[in-house]
């Protein structure tokens, strides 16, 4: 609960309490996480790694579950737009 981590979401700098998930960091920037196959905007549903609605790109790697990954210093997160 002590420190803060700094990362970027769609190029915006974000500061989060240590222990936060990438999903939480993204939510401070945008409600939109991914485009569904028919182009709808989607965002986390389950918060626990089963629904895959929170998929996005982290440090260039696509299809990562944002709710399962702790935010880390220097991470570059990109939602699907």
């Amino acid at each position, binding site marked *: 609960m002590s420190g803060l981590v700094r990362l970027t979401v769609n190029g915006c700098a974000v500061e989060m309490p240590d222990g936060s998930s990438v999903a939480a960091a993204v939510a401070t920037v945008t409600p939109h996480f991914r485009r569904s196959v028919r182009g709808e905007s989607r965002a986390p549903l389950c918060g626990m790694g089963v629904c895959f609605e929170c998929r996005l790109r982290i440090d260039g790697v696509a*299809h990562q579950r944002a709710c399962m990954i702790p935010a880390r210093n220097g991470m570059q997160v990109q939602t699907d737009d």
Partner: protein
Amino acid sequence: MKGGIASHDLIVVGAGIVGACCADAAAAEGLRVTIIEPGPIGGGATAAAMGHLVAMDDDPAELALAHYSLQQWEEFSDLQEAEFSRCGTLWVARGEHELRAAGQRSARLAAAGIQAHAVDAKTLYELEPELAPGMHGGMLVPREAVVYPPRVARYLVRRAQSRGAQLHAGRRVQQLTRDGVQLDDGTRLAGPTLVATGCALPELLPQLPLRPRKGHLVITERYPALLRHQLLELGYADSAHGDAGSSVAFNVQPRPTGQILIGSAREFDAADAEVSPVMLQRMLERAFAFMPVLRKLQALRAWTGFRPATPDGLPYLGAVPGRANLWVAAGHEGLGITTAPGSARLLLDLIHGRTPAIDPAPYAPSRVAA
């Protein structure tokens, strides 16, 4: 005994891609068709397949059937259900000898009327930049395509039904009778009968030898534009046609969804449908050797399927020896999606006593039955 004897022009047993094509072709000619299928339509080998429409040139009879069929597939190139995607086939040469083979093979395909040409290494990497370094070139067959087979089978069965065909869904043919078939609920149907039961052929026609040849496939998440062509190694034919107990080959496909479908593995004497971690590993290592970028992609699912393999690799298409009004269309091994439409035409010509467009002799079931 339940149900009376009804009369039919053609009873099609099995609604995989082969049965579905036959039923559709027969209904289109005005025949009164009845289809019997115990499971989902196209739920057998047809559902497991990659759906690559491809001409293999190493056997003239196989090539003839594939070429004939590919022309008919064009009818479905705009059909939504087919999910037809003309990605072309790019055969990859590893080594000078494979590049030479590419030249010979493209000449053979071209002679048969299929557009194909050898490509040098530079062009190869322009076409598919993610290929591992060190490849020598290859062969491009630009008009080949991929489809989604189970939906095609459904479409064809529905089209046949719209022309009057009857579907006995959830029913299985228990046995062949003197004048037709008997279903598992006791119903008897009379009429000329066509057995298109794929790997289950020996249950009804044990005199026609057939072995299931297991395959594995893996599909990934969506990675649009990573891959543009169906890629195969030129050594694929050695795996496909070799008689080894098990073999793997580099064979990857871009689905229209942006997903990547990865094959291929072949195994005789593997009876259970479980995914074998060992075969999966061999298959994937082979794929990584040609396309290292695959390593990092997310796999969504792996599955298996069984190819109906005859001893000489050619399907049985024609009359069952020694039986009147009994026909067979089965044993298409790893090419049955490609060759189903041509098989259906050929069979209908034989049933009607017409001369087929291609020589039917190589596929005649009489070649094996004593």
